[in-house]
């Protein structure tokens, strides 16, 4: 086997449905064995198409997809040996849970005893041993989800694809299932490619996340990097909450830029992308890194601010204010004695560490 | 006078006007077999009668049988006033109480004074029905396909000499008679033979010999079409239909008159019609000597009155075509004719129909 190649490789893959526009533009993506990679993006960003090309239900218009070093463009889906969990589970309604799980084993002509043993083990894995004789319609959404998961894993594929598998569940169940899938992934060591539009789901589960927008991977990184160091304005905006300020670059030195916010003054920020002098840039600051004080503190960046609205959330207070002309500037202020004095209309200063403010592209 | 009262009066006046106008424009529904036959009746009977009485005639088509009459009479909603039926159906309708009795005294005498009862073909005027025409089941072939065509009824049953499909009416009537005639029974003995079990077996055995070569027809318009389409080389048919195809559409069809089975068509009045007097007048008018002779110039069915025969002229659109020799009753055509015995059929039709249907299905 070509061990120096990654387990899955998208090599310059393009996809078009109508011959006029590209849904996937020049995708290059490597996935290592055992990884949990999430394709994250808004709907229409091309993430599901990428997954379907890997599964074999769509063909790439251009480029190669390599699985274990071999191009799979001409291998039909049923010979790719890839497990798959579908958005609405796609459990066969006319079969019992046991029959559903035995299906991939039967088509592989596995003998009866072994099939039964594997089905049993797979049901144990998702804690559904007692439901083997039920029809899918007799199960709740969460239970169906577990069965779909077990079915995708029962024939021990090395790669499992999941297409928004938790989209139909309510919030609480969804969070619970996230952990469960994560644990199964860790204990089995299979490679998982996961598609979702829910960024918190992606952050919770993934080793790495590929953020898709407009048919292009905007950033591929682990969750911490993605959140802490977004590389462009889209990623910063899409992952977590984000405050933006727009200004012009006035000077650059030692990985830092000075940004001119016009009449509101100048601030320093971490340089992420190359922006020429006087070029437009977007400053990105996470709300939880912002402090509000009556006086401008020293050693930190600060700008005058006026409180517009307060939302009490128990552990913190969400404070909307007007900063440098942006009326939607949010600060999450931890609930402490000090915060009692906050009130709409109050003037003061917002402040943050230089490292927490990133100068990104202007879009 | 209050407004309400004046309105009532006004509407009553309108109503009475409407009733009066309906009464003056009387109309009679006359039901017949459609096609060229109905057309001949419209020309010879309906139009002159309307001219005479001012009452209009609504002409409707049907496919024979008395099921519709039975349904109307039993439902108490009779909308047909005069119906043209076959003899056996006329007798049956009378038996079952579905037809009004008609007093033969209303029938006009012949021009020479012969009373109507002796002018009509003997025994043809029955309690409820007045005959109009003599028609005949014959067989015909396409002379452009067979130059040396069949001549006798035996030829019809001879598939070795004349290979090809035959058309026959899907009914035992006329078929059993023709089968026996083809098997050598003399026209006068047909019903005597048929009255024995062996005779019926003999007729069916003869039919068996051509069963696989038969296409069965039901409506009178079908056989000329089957001949014209080349689906059959010869077919039994009503003689008027074949004549019409020859005279009006110049089809090269040739009629074989040997063992023709002739029958009558009669007018009956369904029991309970609201226009009985009008219907009686129509029937008396239509079956007089001149009207019957007139009809014969439109279709080759023979008039049921003897006195009409000398008045029969030529085909209405072809003066060169004399109608006399086209009639079933013309001496040349009539030599081996078999008269349909309605009494025998009344006694035996249930059994024969069942046996024929079973024979057909197996």
């Amino acid at each position: 086997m070509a061990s120096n190649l990654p387990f899955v490789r998208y090599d310059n893959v393009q996809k078009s449905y109508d011959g006029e526009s590209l849904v996937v533009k020049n995708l290059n993506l490597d996935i290592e064995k055992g990884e949990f990679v999430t394709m994250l993006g808004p709907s229409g960003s091309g993430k599901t198409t990428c997954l379907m090309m890997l599964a074999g239900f769509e063909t790439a218009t251009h480029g190669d997809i390599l699985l274990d070093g071999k191009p799979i463009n001409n291998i039909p889906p049923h010979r790719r040996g890839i497990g798959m969990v579908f958005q609405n589970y796609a459990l066969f309604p006319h079969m019992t849970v046991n029959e559903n799980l035995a299906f991939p084993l039967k088509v592989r002509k596995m003998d009866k005893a072994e099939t039964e043993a594997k089905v049993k083990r797979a049901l144990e894995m998702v804690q559904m041993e007692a439901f083997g004789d039920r029809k899918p319609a007799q199960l709740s959404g969460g239970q169906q989800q577990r069965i779909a998961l077990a079915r995708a894993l029962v024939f021990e594929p090395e790669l499992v694809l999941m297409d928004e598998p938790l989209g139909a569940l309510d919030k609480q169940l969804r969070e619970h299932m996230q952990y469960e899938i994560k644990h199964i992934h860790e204990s089995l060591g299979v490679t998982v490619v996961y598609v979702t539009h829910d960024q918190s789901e992606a952050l919770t589960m993934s080793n790495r996340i590929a953020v898709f927008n407009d048919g292009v991977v905007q950033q591929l990184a682990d969750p911490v990097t993605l959140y802490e160091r977004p590389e462009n304005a889209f990623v910063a905006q899409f992952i977590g909450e984000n405050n933006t300020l727009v200004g012009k670059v006035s000077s650059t030195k030692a990985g830092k830029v000075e940004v001119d916010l016009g009449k509101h003054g100048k601030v320093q920020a971490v340089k992420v992308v190359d922006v020429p002098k006087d070029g437009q840039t977007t400053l990105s600051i996470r709300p939880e890194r912002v402090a509000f004080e009556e006086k401008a503190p020293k050693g930190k960046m600060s700008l005058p601010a006026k409180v517009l609205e307060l939302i009490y959330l128990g552990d913190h207070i969400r404070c909307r204010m007007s900063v440098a002309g942006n009326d939607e500037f949010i600060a999450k202020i931890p609930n402490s004695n000090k915060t009692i004095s906050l009130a709409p209309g109050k003037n003061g200063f917002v402040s943050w560490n230089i490292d927490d403010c990133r100068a990104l592209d202007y879009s | 006078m209050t407004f309400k009262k004046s309105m009532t009066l006004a509407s009553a006046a309108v109503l009475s006007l409407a009733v009066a106008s309906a009464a003056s424009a009387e109309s009679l529904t006359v039901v017949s077999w459609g096609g060229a036959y109905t057309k001949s009746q419209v020309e010879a009977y309906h139009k002159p009668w309307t001219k005479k009485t001012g009452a209009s005639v609504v002409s409707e088509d049907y496919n024979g049988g008395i099921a519709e009459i039975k349904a109307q009479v039993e439902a108490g909603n009779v909308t047909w006033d005069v119906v043209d039926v076959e003899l056996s159906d006329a007798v049956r309708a009378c038996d079952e109480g579905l037809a009004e009795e008609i007093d033969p005294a209303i029938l006009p005498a012949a021009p020479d004074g012969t009373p109507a009862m002796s002018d009509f073909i003997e025994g043809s005027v029955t309690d409820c029905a007045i005959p109009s025409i003599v028609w005949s089941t014959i067989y015909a072939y396409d002379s452009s396909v067979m130059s040396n065509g069949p001549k006798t009824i035996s030829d019809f049953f001879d598939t070795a000499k004349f290979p090809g499909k035959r058309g026959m009416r899907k009914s035992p009537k006329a078929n059993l008679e023709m089968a026996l005639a083809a098997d050598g029974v003399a026209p006068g003995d047909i019903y005597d033979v048929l009255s024995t079990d062996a005779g019926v077996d003999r007729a069916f055995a003869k039919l068996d010999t051509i069963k696989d070569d038969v296409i069965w027809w039901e409506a009178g318009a079908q056989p000329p079409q089957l001949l014209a389409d080349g689906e059959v080389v010869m077919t039994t048919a009503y003689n008027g239909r074949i004549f019409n195809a020859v005279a009006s559409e110049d089809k090269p069809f040739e009629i074989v008159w040997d063992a023709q089975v002739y029958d009558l068509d009669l007018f009956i009045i369904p029991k309970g019609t609201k226009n009985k007097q009008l219907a009686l007048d129509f029937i008396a008018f239509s079956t007089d000597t001149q009207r019957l002779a007139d009809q014969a110039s439109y279709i080759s069915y023979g008039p049921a009155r003897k006195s009409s025969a000398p008045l029969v002229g030529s085909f209405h659109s072809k003066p060169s075509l004399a109608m006399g020799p086209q009639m079933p009753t013309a001496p040349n055509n009539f030599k081996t004719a078999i008269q349909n015995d309605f009494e025998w059929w009344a006694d035996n039709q249930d059994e024969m129909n069942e046996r024929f249907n079973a024979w057909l299905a197996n």
Partner: protein
Amino acid sequence: MSDTRILAADGTPLKKKLAQSMFRTKLRAFGLVCPLLALIISAFVLPILFMLTAAVYDDSYSSLMPESTAAMQEWDGESPITEAMAAAMVSDLIRARENKDIGKVANRVNREYSGATSLFKSTSRSAKKFEPPYLEALRDKDKDWNDLELWQAIKIASDTYTLGYIANAVDMRAKATGGFEPQDELRQIHITLFIRTIEISFIVTVACLLLGYPVAYLMANLPLRTSNLLLILVLMPFWTSLLVRTTAWIAMLQGQGVMNDLFVAFGVASDEDRFSLIYNKTGTLIAMTHIMLPFMIMPLYSVMKTISPAYVRAAKSMGATNWTAFWKVYFPQSVPGIGAGSLLVFILAIGYYITPALVGGQDGQMISNIIDFHMRKSLNWNLAAALGLVLLVFVLFFFWIYDRVVGIDNMKLG
């Protein structure tokens, strides 16, 4: 337990309160369906019930010939004819003649005994002049009155409530001494036709399924615009009169028709030996399959439309080949459509009439054609009703089988 009833706020029992509040809603719902209900009952249920009673009820003899009917009830059907029976017969014949009912009576007996029509009519004409002993008088008038079978036929005809017609419908006939015997072999036809009807309906159903399934599949899986176009093409035959379609098949299939011309042109058949595609069972099968096809496609399509493509994808992702994915996963889910379509086509086909009448020839006739014959030609409405009753029993039987095999709630019509 009545003291544990739950009471509403004003003290009336909750159940009663609920019933009161629901009454208006129910009344309005009933009002909405009322016109249709009335129409169905008056135009469908009642006529069918009346028709079906004709299968077992026939008073055409007993109501017109009361004395002889009474005499016949006492007779055992075997022992010699008595003078009392003859006297009752003569008395009835005279009355029937006066009332002009003799034709009806004669035709009724003629169904059981050929020749009774003329016998009854001629006898009744001279019955007034008969003198006792009447048995002698009858026998002098016509020797047929000697025939025990005639009297047996009269006894059978005099039964007001009779299973005779239903027996006829299954090729049996009633015996005057009670019980039934097989119909004369040369007159047996109904069982053959029932079997052929079921056979033709079955073949048509299977043919519709084989032809319709791929079309429905295509329609369910094509983009909406294309599938709508296909749908219109499928429904097109519905916009043409049945008679026109059947006649078109005659033009297509007859000896000198389009199909045979093509066969000859391509050398499949020789000009002298063309295929018999019509006026036989083949013609019935072809024309009926075409006419029934939309009734198969529509339920199939409506079921297939709801089968998500994800199922087949899931099956393939688990290693199933195209065929296995179809056969094990797609096909079972389309079974409700197959069931509904097949039942619909089968039940429609079993009562089909115009098409076999026009293109069926002699071996393509179905039971409904015989029913039509007895309705319109022989006027034996009792037998027609009995045949209809047997057909109805067949249909209910197949319905029951279907319910046992597929389950009636498993059916989707659209």
